[in-house]
């Protein structure tokens, strides 16, 4: 029977690396006290063990997860890896060890501390991703869309399918300021890349007008007799506000916003041609 040792595993921060930690834990019949990624800034006196990422080992673990505990558990672990839970690596390892022991029912053991902690963390991730599907704001620059977000969890992999289905014909970029990552899309492929220091370009006249129109709509839609800022805050916490159009003002805010004349000017270039006739 393996016991909690006072060893600390150090892995390379990748999902495969984490699976190798699971492999190591079984091979050596030991449970580490903690698992550090290169980002962990902790100095402890416990002995550390470098876990080298071996694609063969990680593949063996990866194949066995759905076999032993089902595809739901694999999805769950992949999501857990994206969360901002402190010590998520250790919790994932403990969860997988439970899964190998109890089988698919591990997903129902909600009253267990390990399972419960991970479930809450994943819930936090999916909630944040869901909110950002709504709160994220694009700006149009030369026909392409760009947005900035500051999420706590790594939400880009969860946002990608949503925005791909929403704007299949657009080119867009979503920059995650917290994790210095960007999701880029052009018809019909997307990629998540590391990106430091992305700066939003200055908005042009048309972009500024639409922002102004949106702020006008936002102010007007409130029923003043029901003013309830507390309720708003609980639905839309303040930490999201900094990236939202309705709470920001453009630097060169002009007194008289541009008059919008109707007509094809507003049609995005790609939409100019008439719909396909069959």
């Amino acid at each position: 029977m393996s016991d909690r040792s006072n060893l600390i595993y150090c892995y390379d921060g990748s999902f495969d690396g984490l699976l190798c930690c699971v492999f190591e834990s079984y091979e050596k019949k030991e449970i580490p006290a903690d698992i550090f990624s290169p980002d962990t800034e902790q100095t402890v006196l416990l002995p550390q063990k470098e876990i080298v990422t071996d694609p063969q080992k990680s593949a063996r673990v990866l194949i066995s997860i759905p076999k032993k505990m089902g595809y739901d558990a694999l999805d769950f672990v992949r999501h857990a890896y994206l969360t901002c839970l402190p010590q998520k690596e250790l919790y994932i390892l403990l969860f997988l060890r439970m899964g190998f022991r109890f089988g698919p029912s591990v997903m129902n053991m909600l009253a267990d501390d390990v399972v419960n902690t991970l479930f809450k963390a994943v819930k936090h991730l999916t909630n944040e991703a869901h909110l950002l599907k709504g709160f994220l704001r694009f700006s149009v620059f030369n026909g392409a869309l760009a947005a900035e977000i500051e999420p706590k969890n790594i939400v880009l992999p969860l946002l990608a399918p949503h925005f791909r289905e929403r704007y299949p014909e657009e080119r867009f970029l979503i920059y995650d300021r917290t994790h210095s990552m960007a999701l880029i899309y052009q018809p019909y492929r997307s990629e998540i890349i590391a990106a430091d220091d992305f700066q939003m370009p200055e908005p042009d006249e048309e972009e500024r007008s639409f922002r102004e129109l949106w702020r006008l709509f936002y102010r007007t839609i409130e029923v003043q007799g029901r003013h309830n800022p507390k309720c708003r805050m609980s639905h839309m916490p303040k930490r999201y506000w900094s990236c939202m159009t309705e709470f920001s003002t453009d630097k060169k805010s002009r007194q008289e916003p541009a008059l919008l004349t109707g007509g094809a000017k507003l049609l995005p270039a790609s939409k100019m041609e008439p719909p396909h006739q069959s």
Partner: protein
Amino acid sequence: MLKVDVFDKLKILTDAAKYDVACTSSGVDKKASRGGIGSATACGICHSFAADGRCISLLKVLMTNSCAYDCQYCVNRRSNDTPRAAFTPRELAELTINFYRRNYIEGLFLSSGILKNPDYTCEQMIEALRILREEYRFSGYIHAKAIPGADSLLISRLGMLADRMSVNIELPSQSSLKLLAPDKSKHSILTPMGYIQNRIQENTTDLVKYRHAPKFAPAGQSTQMIVGATPETDFQILNLTEGLYHKYKLKRVFFSAYMPVSTSSLLPPQGTKPPLLREHRLYQADWLLRFYGFSANEILDEGHQSFNPYIDPKCNWALSHMEYFPMEVNRAPYSDLLRIPGIGVTSAKRIVAARRTGPLHFDGLKKLGVVLKRAQYFITCGGKIADGLKITQDAALRSLMSDTALGMYRLGLPETVPEQLSLFPQPRLTQEDVQKCLTGQI
């Protein structure tokens, strides 16, 4: 009509539409076709929240706020002196697409005042939706108001373009309608509602036969009622709601606390506070009808026409049916778990899943999201009640009432807060009554 620019139009036509409460984008799953734009998720997405705490999901505007009707409760009534404007269908479609591209909105909520006649108004709306759907190949969410009195062919065309349709009942009884909306009748509202329901029904059969049959209002139909403008009781409103869910298969019934927008002597005077608490209780009861397997008669009855202002309808039901409690959480079926105060749909499902892997205890329940503060009075775990639970009157009161309700209760019954008490003549609740109701059965 005055020629005003898009900013002015947007301001006027948003202002005129904001009293409509429905702003959900739920009920349908789809993604953009190649060459198109827009998707929809069944759970709906909120894009922002206004300073009144209400979700902003759709661009909610009127086609025009000019209106031939003179409904007393409405800001857009003919006799009201207010600036009027109208979008052209193309202007509206362009605005929608531009907002949509920037991820400001999930789609369009389009309603309208009656310009010229119902048919003409309906045609204008159809044209706007046609531009969106055909020219922009927009597959985002569209909620369209059926215009009462418009030709059924036009309603049908509108339904083919929209995801959700709604006809507002506004006033929950025939007599109130007659008094306040002389141009409308129960008949003129229920006819399009019934028509839409039939079309949705037919469409489902078509879809079984032909997979690609065009869809008619795939996200279903909804309606709204104004609460507090007329003397209907909570019981009447809730019964009507239940009837609408059963008979017309509505997806949602919305309630809107009446905001005084008129000086008509037939309505509550200007300055009356909107009955927000009453609206809140109606929504709580609505949830009990839709997700918790309650019927209207269980929540209220002839003898109890109004909601208890201090505790929510589910607690209220539990307290007057103590014979069902305490319930054993490790054995009670799902439908019974839903009746326990402090246990909701999510936590009941989790309980059912988690108890398969082993017996549940109180600390486990807490992790599953059960609100033990309330539930502890109604449950046992493995035959035992919660450790150290002392049932005192004060503790029970504190746990079953929300903080605001408790404050209200401590201060004594104020004159202004439970609005419904002043609207309907009924014996005043006394402090003792409330106490009896809250703690008598524990």
